[in-house]
């Protein structure tokens, strides 16, 4: 089935998310939609899937104009979507999820055997190993994604949209997904593959369309180089690598021994983890999301209960300290969810910049806020960290993701630090902001501060790390040097330590 989008335009208030976008996808073709976060890719796909209504423009399937009033219409027309955040019901079985919305009934009762057979039949066709009676919440994310694919195929989808499908996968799972996509393509499906990862694009794409700020800015061949694609994406040539001097690491500053963390349900989420970070080096913690990294960083800050083991900073235990004392010891922290945990969206930039210093001079004297000092401080920081805002009194919630992160960075780095922990510091940021954040992190390291960077993006890990600790299911699979090849790291992220890997700890 041929898919064609003509002149799709969608605005949200003043923001033009899609500006006259044209796109044609032929059957048996993988068409990559490449663009930064916020470029308008997901909006476009939500329009295609009937979740949003376009302000103007047409969707054509096999040259017939379609009018979707909801996702049900799109699905009936033959469009299937594998969502970035899986649209699966965690407490339902695989079969129930697959049948939902087009259930078969016998005498008024659900025909579960038919649904199971359906799941088995599609699984067999693509070589998946999926149990139709397994509960979704018990399945690993890679398998959940397969259920999403089965769901789309069970509705006879001829056009398949993959929205950032690799964000939650290990490199090996990503490779397998690429294989599946090629299989689907050979079976005659028209595939739209949305991503911002250049490596994946070049591997599977037949055609590439690049979107920037809601507009199609160009098309490229899969043979284009990374640099060419990246400059199309951001509109200027960019340097993907970051200049980094040789590590001048000294004594171990942070020493973690036998750290074990249980979650509220009593499950072990971090399992007997030990590592050291020297002053003036960056230790990157790599791994697929949800393998204990969040809990590990929170434990360093004192945000986790049920922690066993030791955490020593410069020879002094900080494990039992309450959070404000940990901060007073000179620990800077960028939480992974900045909107939820790092900022108060309704507060101004100036207020957010002094959030952790409301207990004494120079920001507070005799219980009264020192507004003049705060204004001067905020004005300086906004300048220093290049926060693009109307002024220091603008509420943080109205800033872009990149500028919000700069506010967090400014706050944390304006104290004298003895340890800096950055969790997913560039998640969802534009390339320009990523560059800026990376520069500041490296500058902090060069100033002799031990730095921990947690990231699920291998590119980021490789760009920043002096040493890399890979986490899998709560344990550190191994600590390796910063120039370890991708494929080795990929295996480690799946829990395997390849024989002969040189450890660096």
């Amino acid at each position: 089935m041929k898919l064609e989008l003509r002149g799709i335009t969608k605005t949200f208030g003043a923001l033009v998310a899609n500006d006259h976008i044209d796109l044609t996808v032929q059957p048996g073709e993988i068409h990559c939609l490449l663009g930064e976060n916020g470029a308008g890719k997901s909006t476009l796909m939500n329009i295609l899937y009937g979740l949003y209504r376009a302000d103007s423009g047409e969707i054509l399937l096999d040259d017939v104009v379609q009018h979707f009033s909801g996702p049900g219409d799109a699905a009936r027309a033959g469009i299937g979507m594998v969502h970035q955040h899986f649209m699966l019901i965690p407490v339902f079985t695989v079969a129930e999820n697959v049948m939902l919305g087009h259930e078969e009934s016998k005498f008024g009762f659900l025909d579960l055997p038919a649904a199971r057979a359906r799941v088995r039949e599609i699984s067999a066709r693509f070589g998946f190993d999926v149990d139709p009676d397994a509960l979704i919440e018990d399945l690993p994310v890679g398998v959940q994604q397969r259920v999403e694919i089965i769901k789309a195929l069970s509705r006879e989808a001829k056009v398949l949209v993959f929205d950032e499908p690799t964000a939650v996968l290990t490199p090996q799972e990503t490779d397998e997904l690429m294989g599946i996509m090629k299989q689907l393509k050979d079976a005659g499906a028209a595939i739209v593959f949305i991503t911002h990862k250049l490596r994946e694009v070049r591997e599977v794409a037949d055609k590439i369309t690049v979107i920037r700020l809601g507009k199609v800015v160009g098309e490229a061949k899969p043979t284009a180089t990374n640099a060419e694609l990246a400059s199309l994406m951001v509109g200027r040539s960019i340097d993907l690598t970051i200049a980094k001097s040789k590590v001048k690491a000294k004594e171990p500053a942070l020493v973690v021994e036998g750290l074990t963390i249980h979650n509220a349900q009593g499950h072990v989420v971090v399992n007997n983890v030990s590592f050291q970070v020297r002053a003036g080096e960056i230790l990157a913690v790599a791994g697929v999301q949800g393998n204990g990294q969040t809990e590990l960083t929170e434990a360093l800050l004192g945000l986790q209960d049920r922690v066993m083991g030791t955490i020593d900073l410069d020879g002094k235990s900080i494990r039992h300290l309450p959070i404000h004392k940990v901060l007073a010891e000179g620990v800077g922290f960028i939480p992974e969810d900045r909107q939820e945990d790092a900022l108060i969206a309704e507060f101004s930039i100036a207020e957010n910049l002094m959030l952790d210093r409301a207990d004494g001079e120079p920001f507070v004297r005799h219980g009264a806020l020192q507004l003049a000092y705060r204004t001067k401080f905020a004005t300086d920081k906004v300048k220093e960290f290049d926060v693009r805002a109307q002024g220091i009194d603008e509420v943080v919630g109205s800033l872009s993701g990149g500028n919000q992160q700069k506010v967090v960075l400014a706050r944390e780095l304006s104290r004298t630090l003895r340890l800096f922990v950055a969790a997913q510091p560039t998640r969802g940021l534009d390339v320009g902001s990523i560059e800026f954040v990376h520069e500041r992190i490296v500058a902090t390291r060069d100033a002799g501060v031990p730095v921990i960077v947690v990231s699920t993006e291998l590119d980021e890990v490789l760009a920043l790390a002096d040493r890399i600790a890979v986490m899998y299911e709560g344990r550190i699979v191994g600590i390796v040097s910063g120039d370890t090849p991708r494929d080795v790291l990929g295996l480690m992220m799946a829990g395997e330590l390849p024989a002969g890997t040189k450890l660096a700890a």
Partner: protein
Amino acid sequence: MSAVTATSPVASGTAAGELKVSYKTPITLGIFALLGVILLVVFGRNGTSVFNFTASNAGAIQLPVVSMPGHLTGVVIAILGVLLALGSGLMARFQRRTPLWYITIFAVVLVTGFLVWASTGIPHELHVTGLLVGALGLSAPLIFGSLGGVLSERVGVTNIAIEGQLLAGAFVSAVTATITHSIIAGILAAAVAGVLVSFVLAVFAIKYVVNQVIIGVVLNTLVAGLTTFLYQQVLLNNIGALNNPPVLKQLPIPGLSVIPIIGPLLFDQNVIVYFMYVAVAGVTIGLFRTRWGLRLRAVGEHPQAADTVGINVGRTRFWNVALAGAIVGVGGSYFTLGNIGPFGANMTNGAGYIALAAVIFGGWHPIRATLASLLFGFATNLGSVLGSIQSPVPNDFLLMLPYVVTIFAVAGFVGRVRGPAAAGRPYIKS
């Protein structure tokens, strides 16, 4: 194509030590067993306790009257309770959860002990069947209420307004049945009244995304105020013409109703109770075995996922909340047509809130919510029966009993159950 195998090599590493069965249940049982020992052994009462199992309306079959020595029986039961508590401790020791039937047996044993203790040395017999029949009667509106609550919460709308729906059903059914001289019309009108209350809840909760708890509380207050006002201003002046409905007759089911204890308890009831059996079975089967139920639960768990497969979330929520209101409304008619007849101001007396507790205690499952309602109904009736046979338990304590049971039930055993993920959260499409 082997994502499963790709992620499995180290998977076994963390599995050990994860399954930790808590000692909460054995400890709770232990405390109750200890209370049993104190009451039945230390403060044991001498004399005989007489249990009469024959129902007042049972004609043919007469059951023996059981007399028991109070103290001795108490000691035996106390020992049994301690053994059962220890058994639960052993299960936890070997990493096994105490099953629900085990807790049920424990509860039945201790309640029996309490009944023996309370009825020892008093001049009256304890009519066991009467106690149970009364309990079912008091449970009926709670069961209707909790069924409506289960449906509403499972589709994703928190329903605090059960109390208001019951009261509206009670009021409207009494007035309608009086005017039309038709009990069926009264019951149907009660269902409509419940639906109307639901409409208000649904419109504000789904369309205008007002906080659902607040609407629920406001609706309860509104219905209570409105019915009391109309009762005092209109009904009291025209009792004969407006508030004098006929009462439903018992319809014994031939054959089944003569079975000892069970017969009079389950099969010699009125139409509303028989409808209740159908409703419990229908909701249970419907929720878990039909397309309607699958979609309903999907909308309550993950509305966006339901939306992406073409299910209209708003419509599904609206009509199922309305259906829930109809069921609760019928429950309201039990207060009047199924029981005493005329409407009285605020006659539901908090039953809606107890039904809400039963929804949570029952883990949002229709059968378990029904059992929870029966438990609360039994506690209420136990209080009034013991009060009437001059047992040594203070009357105020007995009046408190159903609420104590509610608190223990919801606080003590609910911890591990999980409600519908999206209950109470409006679905806003961007």
